């Protein structure tokens, strides 16, 4: 088997300029911070980011906004990052706002082979503009299409060297969904343990679906 764990600089270099990138996390909690730092260091830009939010300046996805690496953001909330809002209002960054539950389902659909999902959320609001409405048993739903990405960058509490992932508390959020929805899934973990240490029932994201694992931080 090919070695899965690589240094963070190699892992981040798999993201090419202009790529569509999903990034796990919620206000930076459960975001792949080492990978984000490395994207900034290597200045990999023109990215389309799919993420719940853009955290805040200087933290999480906010660092990519600070560095001017995002061309477009698909997110549910940018209110905690005034810089994203300013760049959106002056037209530097294109922002597509998606209700959070819809965003989660669109990513899930992308990873699970579905063309989209039907949700009552957004019916009759600005979110419905340009979308198809479908009636099922007398109730109206919006057709929301699947989202996929070139690369998903996810964060876990623990990984084993097969890439099996276990998550922590509210740091799980979008990570397991995104891990399924990209051509290449790159995971970083707070800790990497020997294969077998994470019992099968505790694994949330199967290692066989993780393509690259960010290796341990070198001891300094």
């Amino acid at each position, binding site marked *: 088997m090919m070695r899965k764990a690589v240094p963070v600089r190699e892992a981040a270099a798999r993201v090419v300029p202009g790529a569509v990138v999903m990034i796990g996390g*919620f*206000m*930076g*909690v*459960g975001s792949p911070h080492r990978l984000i730092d490395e994207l900034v260091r290597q200045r990999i830009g023109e990215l389309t980011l799919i993420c*719940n*939010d853009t*955290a805040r300046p200087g933290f999480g996805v906010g660092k990519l906004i600070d560095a001017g690496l995002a061309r477009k953001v698909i*997110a*549910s*909330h*940018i*209110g*905690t990052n005034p810089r994203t*809002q300013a760049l*959106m*209002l002056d037209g530097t960054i294109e*922002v597509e*706002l998606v*209700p*959070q*539950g*819809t*965003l*989660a*389902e669109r*990513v*899930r659909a992308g990873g699970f082979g579905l063309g989209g999902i039907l*949700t*009552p*959320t*957004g*019916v*009759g*609001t*600005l*979110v419905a503009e340009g979308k198809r409405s479908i009636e099922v048993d007398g109730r109206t739903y919006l057709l929301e299409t699947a989202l996929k990405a070139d690369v998903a960058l996810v964060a876990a*509490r623990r990984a084993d060297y097969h890439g099996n992932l276990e*998550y*922590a*508390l*509210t*740091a*799980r*959020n*979008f*990570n*397991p*969904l995104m891990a399924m929805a990209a051509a290449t899934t790159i995971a970083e973990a707070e800790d990497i343990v020997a294969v077998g240490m994470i019992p099968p029932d505790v694994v*949330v994201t199967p290692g066989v679906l993780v393509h690259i694992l960010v290796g341990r931080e070198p001891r300094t």
Partner: protein
Amino acid sequence: MTDKDIIARRVARELKDGDRVNLGIGLPTLVAKFLPPSLRVHFHSENGIFGMSPLPGEGFEDRNLTDAGGRPVGALPGACAFDSAFSFGVIRGGHLDVTVLGGLEVDEQGRLANWMVPGKMVPGMGGAMDLVTGARRVIVAMTHRSPSGAKIVRQRSLPITSIRRVDLVVTELAVIRPTAEGLVLTEIAEGVSVEQVLAATDARLIIDPTLQYG
């Protein structure tokens, strides 16, 4: 007591033992501190947890455990965590008894606007559209007016969050129940007169014959 505390204390009286509740960011978060300790409410947060304790014990903060605003919270014994799709399945699937949300405007149809001010402030809807659409009961907790004017209005100036009529609006002055017939003034706060409430409101209010005085 501040206006926000007055609102939060009144909203707390709406929660029942065993309720599964999601509190929005900001003012709604304050509701938790006015719950009697004997009442067991199961707090849900859209970033993926049931059993959140909004007030974390000192020394127990965990960087992997926050509320939807990113602030550290606690988890009670019996808490459980899940991913975002599951979390919104809870919300849309009818598994959430109550959501308490802040508001920018509520119109005569009881429709809430709370996610953007076009051209000025575009924070995004976050989980608000799903919460208003999916929760069994939607309570809006907001100040009666903003510095720029009335928030309870005949016609909205802001884009709605959902076409769903909210169930209750609680302000520092009054409690208002939106119905098919219009906005019903059911309760006024201590020391407040009906005239004061009417003067602070830009919508038609139907005065409940059994109007309660706080």
